[in-house]
């Protein structure tokens, strides 16, 4: 499997001088094309920071992160922005939408940055994505007029607009009720099935059970790794129990 992202010996510190706090301690990780990886761990273990470093949103202090073989550190601010806009998608715990824009405009925003002339075509694409994720008809709504679950779907539509190589999700179900979370995970699974790589940061074993590989983090390092193979509904309970067993054994 070709590797989209390779992180090697990543060190990340916050703060400077004597107040510096090391959040990632020589972490090495690889994500293959079309692979679904979940990252688990207690609060403060560095899992979200790892995601931010791998996606180029945060600069690393030591080590290297390669995207399709090219070090992110060699990319300028503009190239990194282009990479995030064109090749990556993001879904966060909070919807991260702009309050000034309605639902449709929020979905269109990053893709219109490059393709203003194709607005009609992109609008059609956005509408079909909305239909697919079950929020058709909400195009003109303000983001304060729709539910949290619907907002997360808006986020997914936005992430899918650019046909990304990989989608990063940081606790995307964290603020949702269980029914909405379940629906959200169905969506992620479907997206993965279509060939998009996914890296998901989560606390939830049910969510992690959808992944092919689970990384367990503790104190800024990867403490363990669990290979689960492709998700099948009938194996869901067994996968969850393997994950919880591993967590128990690791004490996380």
């Amino acid at each position: 499997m070709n590797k989209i992202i390779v992180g090697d010996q990543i060190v990340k510190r916050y703060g400077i001088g004597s107040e510096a706090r090391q959040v990632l301690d020589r972490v090495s990780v690889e994500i293959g094309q079309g692979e679904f990886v979940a990252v688990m761990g207690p609060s403060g273990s560095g899992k979200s920071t790892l995601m931010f470093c791998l996606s180029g949103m945060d600069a690393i202090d030591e080590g290297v992160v390669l995207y399709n073989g090219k070090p992110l550190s060699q990319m300028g601010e503009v190239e990194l922005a282009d990479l995030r806009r064109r090749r990556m998608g993001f879904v966060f715990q909070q919807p991260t939408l702009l309050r000034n824009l309605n639902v449709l405009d929020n979905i269109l925003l990053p893709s219109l940055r490059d393709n203003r002339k194709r607005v009609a075509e992109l609008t059609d694409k956005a509408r079909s994505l909305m239909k697919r994720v079950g929020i058709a008809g909400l195009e003109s709504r303000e983001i304060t007029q729709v539910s949290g679950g619907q907002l997360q779907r808006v986020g997914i539509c936005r992430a899918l607009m650019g046909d990304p190589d990989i989608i990063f999700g940081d606790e995307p179900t964290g603020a949702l009720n269980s029914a909405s979370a379940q629906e959200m995970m169905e969506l992620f699974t479907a997206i993965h099935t279509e060939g998009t790589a996914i890296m998901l940061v989560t606390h939830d074993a049910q969510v992690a059970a959808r992944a092919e590989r689970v990384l367990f983090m503790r104190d800024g390092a990867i403490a363990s790794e669990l290979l689960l193979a492709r998700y099948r509904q009938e194996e869901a309970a067994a996968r969850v129990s393997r994950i919880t067993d591993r967590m128990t054994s690791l004490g996380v």
Partner: protein
Amino acid sequence: MYRRIIRRDIARNKLITLTMTLFVAAAALLVALAALLIVHLSGSIDTLMTQARTPHMTQMHAGDLDAARLAAFAEQSEHVEQYQAVEFVNIDGARIRIGEQTLAGSVQDNGFVKQNESFDYLLDLDGQVIQPRDGEVYIPIGYWRDGTAKLGDTVTVEDKTFTVSGFLRDSQMNSPLASSKRLLVSDQAFAELRPLGSIEYLIEFRLRDLSTLTAFQTEYTDAGLEANGPALTYPLFRMLNAISDGMMIGVLLLVSLLVVVIALLCIRFTLLAKLEDDYREIGAMKAIGMRLADIKRLYLAKYAAIAAAGSVLGFAAACALRGALLDNIRLYMGESGNDALALAIGALGALLVLLAILGYVSGVLRHIRRIPAAEALRYGVSQSDKVGARRLRLSRNRLLPVNLFLGVQDVLSRKRLYATMLTVLILASFIMIVPHNLHHTISQRSFSGYMGIGAYDLRLDLQQSPDIAERATAIADKMAADPDISRYTVLMTKSFQVRTAEGTTQTMRIELGDQDAFPVQYSKGGSPQTADKIALSALQAEELKVTVGDPLVLASDSGDVRLEVSGIYSDITHGGKTAKASFADDSGDIVWAVVYAELTASSDAAAKAAAYSDSFPYAKVSDIEAFIDQTFGSTIRAVGQASQGAIAVALLIALLVTLLFIKLLLAKDRYAIAVMQAFGFTNRDIKLQYITRSLFVLLLGLSVGTLLANTLGERLAGAVIASFGASSFEFAIDPLSAYVIYPVLMGCAVGLATLIGTSGSGNIILSEHIKE
């Protein structure tokens, strides 16, 4: 603890803190300065009027005077403490020569007086009563100030010669607005000058009790005593003395009000942004049981520190600057004698600014009460913020690039937020455009037509002399033979007595000759084309209370001559009170004569002026540019300087306020910026959005500011111009500078401020804000 919080906050927001401190300091400076000046002005006027023993009422009177009857009235009146009838020898300005020049161009009625015996003293610069010796003359201080006279100059009236031995303060007529000026000579010299001019009387009274002034005025009128001139009172003298510096203080107060408003707007915006920033912390403080007053105090402490530092700075600057602004008051009226009080009141002014800011901050901090703890803790941002109309849809936008669209859309959807910046930019545009347009208008060659100056190339002025008519003829003869001169005309100015509406007569100078050769612009009616017509300047018509079509009667030895007013024109020359007619007149002396000429296209006006100057050394030869420069060149230059100053101030305000605003906006929008950057927007994209916002607001500000400048500003400027004697006024706008250069300059200031302000936008740590 407060000190630590303040120090840390200031260290984190140096630029914002500095800008706000500067605005507060400017506000405190202006308020303190205005307060200081008011006390000094009032003190100096009191000192002057006490030392001079200014009359409580002065009745001006021209004509015969029954001194015995007046003395009897004063004797019998229970109100009168002292009475005197002062003689004032009014002499035409053209006949008074000081140094190299005459007072012909003086706006004032100039006359000679002797020192009074018991009150209405004319004082020297030490506040002492002047007793001039024979051969000495004391000149009003204003004439020293404007360079008309200097110590040791020779003053001649006919064959009488005096030496300027000093300058005088006149508690009645000090002000440039008082229409007469008294020159003080010895009793002996006064007696010699008396036959040379017309006698006017100042019938003066000091009352036992000033509060009975109104009753006394009624008593005087009822007695039917001499009163064919205006009656002036003690309060009016006070006002006249106060008005010039008072206007400056008024302007200071107005500007200080503007700056206080800008300072408060900036503080409001900064504070609200800070509260929004600290939304979650405020929620947490409320949740753990901190009292509202304690939370407010945390914020108030920082603004109290800024306001206190700004006020102290402003007051110190006011103390340093007051000397320069007090010069004029000291010169005209002497020391105020209440320095300590002035300082105290100045400090009080600065303190008022401080208290106003604290009160305002305290008011803004009431927002804290409305922050729900649970919501603040949970979301970290207010959920009830109203977002304005979002009719602009990105998905329907076919016109603008995405970043430009986002910039414009943000301004339109958060109108209240941008109102602060818009207001300041409207004010800045107004401050920039109005003085510039005024300067451009009065600098125009065509404007001189509105100001009583015809469209000639060359003028030769002949001052009073016995053979003035022959001299004018000699010049005319030479011009007739000069191939470089395409046409010319000779205009003679003579003094006439005109009958006023009140039945009295007054002196009026009329320029006689062909008034259509080099016509001025008439705001009403037209030129006096026949011998029974006369045209008046706006101020003259106003004084005589006549308009076009009204009759005007000239009194002469051979009987009254009835004329009809044919037109009214604006004039700034000769004090604005002039008249033009074309009738022939052989009587009376010529006060002055002017020869106007138009040159052929190829001639050089300056060279021609030099040639005529050589040929006719007794004539003052000037080309039109030189004449305009001499007559109101100083006004044009002063307005030009004020305009440049205003442009600099406007640009500085635009720059500072935009910088402050953008810094705060950036702090407020960190989350939205982080979201956009996370999804692939570059720093350049973000900067472009902010520049679009700034320039869009500037465009609105410039449009509204220009509109206001061309309507309200034109009326304001018209009022200023009217005081020079121009009756009609429209801005002559230079489209290149008013609509291109200066707006572009302001655009550069705003753009630069935005660039500086957004320079830190790339430093936002995405993970911190996205995780919120």
